[in-house]
């Protein structure tokens, strides 16, 4: 409440720094707000606000224009490569290296090729990517909320040490684990057949990021709810499942999005652990087709495959943008 009269004053100050007169008056408002923060002082200040904002608009036109110039320019820089990808997927090979915005002729031959003539076919790769991404997401949500809840709410000897160990794994680069994981999964018999997909799920089954995100969220839930459940005679597991887990759904959503997207896009572990062609995930297939599959510069079908691999993530992003941003901002570490 104490702050509210000062806010418009600050806006006024930044709005017109050139004129000393206005800066004087704003200082007076600050003094009034600071000295006597009664309701009377707050009211006129809030009434001044709209007109001040208008002044800000006119005196900062150049800065705004510059900002929009950069914003739109950079947005174009982001947009053009994707747009070019889509356009190219409707071109013929000869046309694909020409600077034409509208394909001449418009053809779906590349799509036909990408959808029906690849070996292994796109549907198979979609299926592989999907299975792995769903499985990894599930294990992370389940195991992450188990551990997150325990670390946030249950007291047991060694809790802090164990949590520290979890955080320490964030310091271990995946790449350093490459060889040991390869040896371990082979020793477990996960190197053959469809089990290669299971080996990826095993490696990614739980990430410190998931545990951390969920623990932080459980910490923010008021204790009263838990205690009420406890008094009603609920045990720790019932309280966790019936009371706490439903309350943690925003954090669960963030973990779900983060893990699904990360695994769907994942290149490193499939590249290391998958040897059978028919188990390729989309990113692996996309890379292998170009490197060894003989369509190195057959751009149109390659671009159609890029679109196919990107669209599911784009759709998720359009619907759940908030969770993408929250997940990355809260964790900051790729899971």
């Amino acid at each position, binding site marked *: 409440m104490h*702050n509210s009269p000062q*806010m418009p*004053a600050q806006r006024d*100050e930044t709005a017109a*720094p050139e004129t000393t007169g206005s*800066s004087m008056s*704003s200082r007076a408002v600050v003094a009034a707000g600071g000295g006597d923060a009664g309701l009377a002082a707050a009211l006129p200040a809030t009434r001044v606000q709209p007109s001040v904002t208008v002044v800000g608009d006119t005196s900062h036109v150049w800065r*705004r224009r510059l*900002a929009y110039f*950069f914003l739109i320019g950079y*947005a174009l820089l*982001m947009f053009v*490569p*994707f747009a070019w*990808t889509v356009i190219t997927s409707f071109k013929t090979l000869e046309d694909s*290296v020409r*600077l034409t915005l509208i394909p001449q002729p418009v053809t779906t031959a590349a799509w036909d090729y990408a959808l029906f003539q690849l070996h292994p076919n796109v549907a198979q790769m979609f299926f592989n990517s999907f299975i792995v991404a769903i499985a990894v997401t599930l294990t992370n949500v389940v195991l992450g909320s*188990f*551990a997150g809840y325990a*670390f946030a709410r249950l*007291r047991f000897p060694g809790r802090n040490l*164990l949590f520290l*160990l*979890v955080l*320490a*794994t964030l310091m*271990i*680069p995946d*790449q*350093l*684990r*490459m*060889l*040991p*994981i*390869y*040896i*371990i999964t082979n020793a477990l018999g996960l190197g053959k057949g469809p089990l290669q997909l299971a080996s990826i799920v*095993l490696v990614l089954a*739980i990430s410190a990021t998931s*545990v951390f995100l969920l623990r932080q969220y459980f910490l923010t839930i008021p204790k009263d709810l838990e205690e009420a459940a*406890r*008094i009603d005679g609920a045990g720790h597991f019932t309280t*966790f499942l019936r009371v706490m887990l439903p309350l943690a759904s925003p954090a669960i959503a963030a973990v779900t999005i983060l893990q699904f997207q990360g695994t769907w*896009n994942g*290149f490193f572990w499939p590249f290391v652990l998958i040897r059978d062609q028919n188990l390729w995930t989309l*990113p*692996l297939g*996309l*890379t292998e087709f*170009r490197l060894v599959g003989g369509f190195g*510069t057959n*751009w149109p079908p390659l*671009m159609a495959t890029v679109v196919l*691999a*990107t669209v599911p993530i784009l759709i998720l992003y359009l619907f759940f943008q908030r969770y993408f*941003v929250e997940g*990355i901002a809260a*964790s*900051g570490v790729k899971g």
Partner: protein
Amino acid sequence: MTAASTPRPGKVAARRVGARQEALAGYALVAVPMLLFLVLNIGSILYAAFISVWRWNIRTGPQQFLGLDNYVKALNDPIFQSAVTNTVYYTVIWVPLTMALGLFLAVIVNQKIRGKTFFRGAFYFPSIASSAAISTIWIFILNPFGLFNEVRGALGLNPLFSLLGYDANQDWLGDYHTAMNGVIILNAWTTSGTFMIFYLASLQAIPHEVYEAAAIDGAGAWDTFRRVTFPLLRPGHFFVATVGIIGGLQLFDQAVQIGNVDGAPANSLMTLVLYLYNAAFKRVQYGYAAAIGVVLFVIIFSATLIQRRIFEGREPTTA
């Protein structure tokens, strides 16, 4: 709630049972996740360190104890040296470039502008697309007959590029001299959105009063940024730089996707991790590969420590 917390005689034993149950529940919930962390993460590095001091047979395991021989071998290996050089070069250029872009975007997006959400969303999107898709797009755009060369030709910029020594159909990602710079620009393009998100989080952590004070002192926009915002973002800088350096030293996806496992052209895209991959799976020298992994870990770890020292041990707010 009050009933539970009121101490009652004879309840001590019951409370002890309660504490035991709580502990048991705790252990039960963390058992599986901790097993996975201990075996697949902590166990993995210890295992890698163990493998690194042996000549390792891929079937039978340890064959001959070598001590630090694998490490000595790595230090004298010219391809390892160029892998270190390439990786460090990439990190040293890519991290500041992407930080600058991310900060720039964050500051602009943080202003009172229309379509804030749209722009933020657009800038962040490349970060969430797969590296395989992004690399493929850029290989296409930067190929000798690709969009980039076509556009600069159409804009009449070719004389400028020929002054710099590039002809009209320069193969940016296939030429030894330009491949790594191409990867740097590609990844700066992709990651600037992520760094923007990080910077936005720390920009919003700066209290409003600070700007008010600066405004009262009559500071202009640039001065406010240079003397107030930038220094106050220090925890953000630390965090972004650390994430960037750790990520940069692990460059792998784009190197493979563009230059295959050989780091083509002419080892210019041979990174530390790629060399580790080669040693393990192409030359099948497990002991040597593990040693490279340990060296990589030491480099990353010390980079983080140095970083922390430079930023005077101030904790990042975001993590």
